[in-house]
């Protein structure tokens, strides 16, 4: 009981401390702080710090190491400076993949954000159907990504896939994603929309739920149409949430790997060879660790910069 109370009272919920303790010793803490500081917290975080260091930070340093060396074999390597960075940024195949990935991300955002918001607006705000709706909407998010890829790989097949077969034989349109580039692109795009729109919808739904009832009541009283209510009450309140949704979806779609790899393997040709797929080909397939290292770092840098720009633009627009 004592422990529970200490934790409840010691945690700075929202930065407010309701009551405080008398000075335990005579020496004051000379750091002036707004939020209560608890040194014990650092010890709790230590295991995470160690494992992240081990699994991410140190390997990242290894990548940096590779990116500035030409490696023939583990014992045979020479320092080449920024050579790989230069050649990677000039490589036409990599440039094409970059454009392709950018195009894909743009289309993903254009489709998923409006669709997600529309879904959120349509979901019920109270009553028993709330839980049902939430579960249904969240289902695609719960499926492991390679399984998502497998589902769509089969679904879109022209011969045994329900979707592919329907399009070819019921709608009369020729559709074969293994042969046609456009068909492959569309398949991957629609799969991503199916998989990730629920995330946007759930985020937007949380944002919408925070709007107090009187706002909707006032809109009713003012005779506002559904569209006017959306435009003037719901949309302005969604700004913060949408910023997060856009950022997340951009980063994820720009780095997409599993799903398209399972469905098309990057093909036909390189129609769906996004940056990450190309990178894995170079690093794992060809074992060109030098160029792969440089590629990785540049990739990382691009994602950081674009995300930062996005974030700044979106939050500034809010002020």
């Amino acid at each position, binding site marked *: 009981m*004592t422990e529970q*109370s*200490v934790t*409840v*009272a*010691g945690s700075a919920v929202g930065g*407010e*401390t*309701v*009551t*405080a*303790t*008398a*000075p*335990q010793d005579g020496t*004051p*803490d*000379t*750091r*002036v*702080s*707004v939020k*209560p*500081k608890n040194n014990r917290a650092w010890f709790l975080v230590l295991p995470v710090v160690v494992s992240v260091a081990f699994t991410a930070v140190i390997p990242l340093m290894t990548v940096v190491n590779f990116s500035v060396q030409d490696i023939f074999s583990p014992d045979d390597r020479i320092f080449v400076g920024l050579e790989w960075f230069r050649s990677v940024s000039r490589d036409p195949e990599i440039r094409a993949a970059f454009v392709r990935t950018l195009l894909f991300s743009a289309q993903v955002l254009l489709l998923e954000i409006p669709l997600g918001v529309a879904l959120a607006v349509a979901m019920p705000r109270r009553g028993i159907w709330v839980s049902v709706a939430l579960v249904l909407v969240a289902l695609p998010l719960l499926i492991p990504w390679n399984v998502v890829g497998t589902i769509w790989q089969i679904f879109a097949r022209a011969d045994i896939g329900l979707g592919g077969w329907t399009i070819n034989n019921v709608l009369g349109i020729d559709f074969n994603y293994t042969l046609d580039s456009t068909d492959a692109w569309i398949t991957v795009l629609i799969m991503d929309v199916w998989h990730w729109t629920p995330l946007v919808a759930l985020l937007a739904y949380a944002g919408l739920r925070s709007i107090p009832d009187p706002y909707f009541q006032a809109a009713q009283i003012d005779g506002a149409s559904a569209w006017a209510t959306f435009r003037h009450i719901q949309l302005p309140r969604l700004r913060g949430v949408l910023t997060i949704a856009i950022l997340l979806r951009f980063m994820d779609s720009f780095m997409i790997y599993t799903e398209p790899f399972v469905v098309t393997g990057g093909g036909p040709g390189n129609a769906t060879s996004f940056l990450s797929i190309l990178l894995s080909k170079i690093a794992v397939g060809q074992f060109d660790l030098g160029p792969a290292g440089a590629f990785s770092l540049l990739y990382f840098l691009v994602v950081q910069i674009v995300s930062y720009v996005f974030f700044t633009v979106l939050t500034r627009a809010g002020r």
Partner: protein
Amino acid sequence: MALVLDGVRVRQRGETWLHDIHLELSSGMTTLVGPMAAGKTTLMRVVGGLLPPDAGRVVVNGKDVTAISVRKRSVAFVYQQFINYPSLSVYENIASPLRIARSFPKKDMDRRVREVAEIMGIGDLLDRRPAELSGGQQQRTAIARALARPVDVLLLDEPLANLDFKLREQLRGDLKNMFRDSPGVVLYSTADPAEALTFASPTVVLGEGRVLDMGDVADMYAQPPTLAVAATLSDPPLNLLPGVIREGRIECLGSSFPSPGAHDSGRNVVLAVRPHQVTIERSGSEVLEFPAEIRLAEVTGSATFLHLLLADGRHLVAQLPGTQLFTPGERAVAYVDPAHIFVFDEVGGRLLATSAAEVDLHG
């Protein structure tokens, strides 16, 4: 002095919220009164240690606590919103500060919790959760929690503002008795001047981030040193009229009275008179007369608020006793006894004079 603020200044996002605050408060209750956005909450947060000041010091019982984080100070807060731990019972809520303070003997804890609950009148609600209580009961739980462990400084930020009018009246009386003999400093903020008058404790008047005045609230009411203080301590709001000093008399809208004190001729002044000092019956020879048209009469039963439109478009509000019926559009004459007028300097609002007969609020 138990609590001293020395030159405290707070700036946030380019705006100064508190300008150079100097205060010396002794133990017992002190009321902090001021309108919205005067800086009351900011001041309390600085005193409590939630907000470090950009300049100045906070000294409690002789010790400089400015740099000490709130967790190490002996401070308790009661907020306007009823803040309680929602998952704990009332008993546990009140006991929580006692449990954290490892120096509080466990065997005394139960006795203390029950004692404080009894004082706050929630002795029979100890098993309930805050969500099951009414607003008044929740706030009393919050206050009980703040009282559980004796602290050096108890801060209450407009604690009754979210309660019903009648409940407020009732709790005000309870709190006044409770804090009167407190060994620590109790700082109570309010935007309601009537509340400040009820508490009749040493009062600090705050306005626009500055201390406008400090002292006995009845004195400040009777002799406000500045227009800002007079306006803050008036409910209903003060009537303000323009005046000019000319040859020993103060002229105002066609009427005049002898100017108390010698002041330069031609000087513009602001005359302030409280609504209950405006009558519609002539009560003496040397009174100010303002012909007016009746715009509105608000009758509450115990008083009638008469809104008068003066010749030059100004408004005057008279508070008349009892129920008096009027027809809007009727003509009337408003009378003001110069004895009840405050004359303020036009620039800076300093009180230049009150008249001969002062209202003596001390018996």
